[in-house]
């Protein structure tokens, strides 16, 4: 912890009581963070040690099969669903975000649609899954298969993507749009070339984190995706048995309950799947950070063609005026 950046020379002396209170306050805050870090470390350590205890690389080469040999089919299923959600929820979520931020007139319709999206994010995932089951699996006779699972999962994360898009777009200064128009660009071009491009870090972060959420979901899939211990047959709709989708969270959720005297591999697979999920989620989070870092070259300044030197000068200038700020 660096000494407070705020110089205290010249300030009136501080009494011991105030010093103690000051120390206690920051101590409490630090303890708060410490306690928050505990479950993170504990969960990771728990999953890693449990998975490592009986780790076998064959989980990457074999499907679950009848005797719990591997996880390859569930990995495949989870990746497929991730791609599907990225497509479906991505299009709907980004479109919704664009509309909310760029197209819609402030008014009743916009606040209703925005509100609906937020309320949607508050619906418990099992309820979403059950409605998906009733409407898609049963009533439309789609059977347990990829498409109902994708649709259910997509609407679970659409609100997050929409919100991230809306926020990212609204943070692009109005001046950029006006600048683009002043140059005679069509508005769609302004949106595509300048506004959206400047918002890429925010949008992709939202999208990636939404994917992280979708990868970790169990409840919406239990009654829509079904499960098969073999490989997926490539069909988007059921009712063929092999059209059911295996996925990683199912393994974690159910395999630990299998009698271990009969299938001794089941319990380890439960933790292997948990570990893979954690790695996947962590990977997605790091990817989001990487995207932010890489796309900073598409930050508003760059997108509008300001030279790097000018940018550096501007930054230096800004830093100079706000030197005291610890979080510039």
């Amino acid at each position: 912890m660096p000494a407070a950046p705020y110089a205290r020379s010249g300030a009136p002396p501080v009494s011991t009581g105030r010093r103690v209170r000051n120390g206690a306050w920051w101590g409490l805050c630090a303890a708060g963070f410490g306690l928050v870090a505990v479950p993170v470390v504990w969960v990771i350590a728990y999953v890693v040690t449990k998975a490592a205890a009986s780790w076998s690389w064959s989980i990457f080469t074999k499907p679950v099969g009848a005797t719990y040999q591997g996880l390859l089919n569930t990995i495949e299923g989870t990746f497929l669903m991730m791609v599907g959600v990225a497509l479906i929820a991505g299009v709907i979520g980004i479109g919704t975000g664009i509309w909310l931020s760029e197209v819609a007139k402030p008014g009743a319709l916009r606040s209703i649609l925005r509100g609906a999206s937020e309320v949607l994010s508050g619906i418990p995932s099992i309820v979403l899954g059950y409605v998906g089951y009733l409407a898609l699996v049963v009533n439309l006779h789609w059977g347990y298969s990829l498409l109902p699972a994708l649709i259910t999962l997509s609407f679970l994360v659409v609100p997050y993507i929409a919100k991230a898009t809306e926020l990212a777009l609204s943070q692009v200064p109005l001046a950029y749009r006006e600048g683009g128009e002043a140059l005679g660009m069509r508005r769609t071009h302004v949106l595509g070339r300048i506004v959206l491009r400047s918002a890429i870090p925010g949008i992709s972060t939202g999208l990636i984190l939404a994917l992280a959420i979708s990868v970790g979901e169990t409840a919406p899939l239990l009654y829509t995706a079904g499960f098969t211990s073999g490989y997926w047959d490539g069909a988007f709709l059921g009712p063929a048995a092999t059209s059911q989708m295996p996925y990683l969270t199912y393994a974690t959720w159910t395999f630990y309950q299998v009698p271990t005297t009969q299938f001794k591999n089941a319990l380890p697979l439960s933790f292997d799947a948990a570990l893979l999920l954690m790695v996947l989620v962590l990977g997605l989070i790091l990817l989001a950070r990487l995207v932010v870092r890489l796309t900073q070259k598409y930050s508003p300044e760059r997108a509008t063609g300001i030279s790097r030197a000018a940018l550096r000068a501007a930054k230096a200038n800004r830093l100079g005026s706000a030197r005291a700020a610890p979080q510039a």
Partner: protein
Amino acid sequence: MSTPDTAPPRPTPAPATSDGSVYLRGNGRALDWATRLLALLPFAALAAILVVLFYEALPAIRFNGFGFLVNRVWSVGSTYGGVSKAGGVLHPFGAKYGAWPIIAGTLETALIAMVVGLPLALGAAVILVEKMPPQLASVAGLVLEVLAGVPSVVIGLWGLLTFGPWMARNIYPAVHAIPIPFLHNQPVGTGEGLLTAGLVLAAMIVPIVAATTRDLLRSVPVATKEGALALGMTDSEAFWSVQARWVRTGVVGAAVLGLGRALGETIAVALCTGSVLQIAQSIFSTTGTIASTVVSQLDSSQSDPTGLAVKSLAEAALVLFLITLLVNVVARMIVRRSARGAALPVGAGF
């Protein structure tokens, strides 16, 4: 509905609304309509979910009446004992549905989560913004994001198999010495129950509250902080008189969002509460929430030939929906009233 005007591409000046809306109207009509259509989809999905749920729950609502909210017994009845009709609704003998235990369980677990999680989240956010050097803050931010990203089935399994039993052995015996009625000298059990579920939920809402608070604190103007320090305040005094006031309303909004998450969490709670349809006798005993009950009872409910069991679960889901709707509306009202920059914690994921 808007009226897409036919004006030529340029002349109309861009309306300078603060958030840049209305900006595209008048040209890019395809984009206008495409995005509008897409924006209608979440609304349509929500409406469809409500219609399906309500339609599904209607016979249960008629059968259960208002007693649903206050009665304590949830019994599918004798599914093998034949059926009879009451108020036009077919039901097995002995069927009665009272959701009060799971409504109470939902509120209690959420309350514990808030009482424990809120201070931790605020403390973490404050130390992260005010005292950590940028590199460390970046790592700390990663910790929060990872916590937000842990799949709920994984955190639930951890709570069930390790965290709960460990707490029951090492911490709860100390806790139950505290002379508070609900707590004092109660049997600590095996670590499955109200308190464990509340603590696990606390861990799950921390990232939501902390990320929002972090963003709010970062939006506090530096000059104001400097002013307080210049007056000779210690930096904690400055924090309480400047930053705390600046972010106050926004934090309330963030807390309510965390509450929404705590109310609706399903899998982790189903694993950690014991998911029984009972009012907890003490803070250590097993209980259930609405969401965990839906997941744990959905299977057996499907063997009720009259379908009333599943319909009553739908009714419970509807009650939960109304509770979360209320929480969301309150959150939106508070967040809207709060200072600009009270961003929803979407970037942090939850």
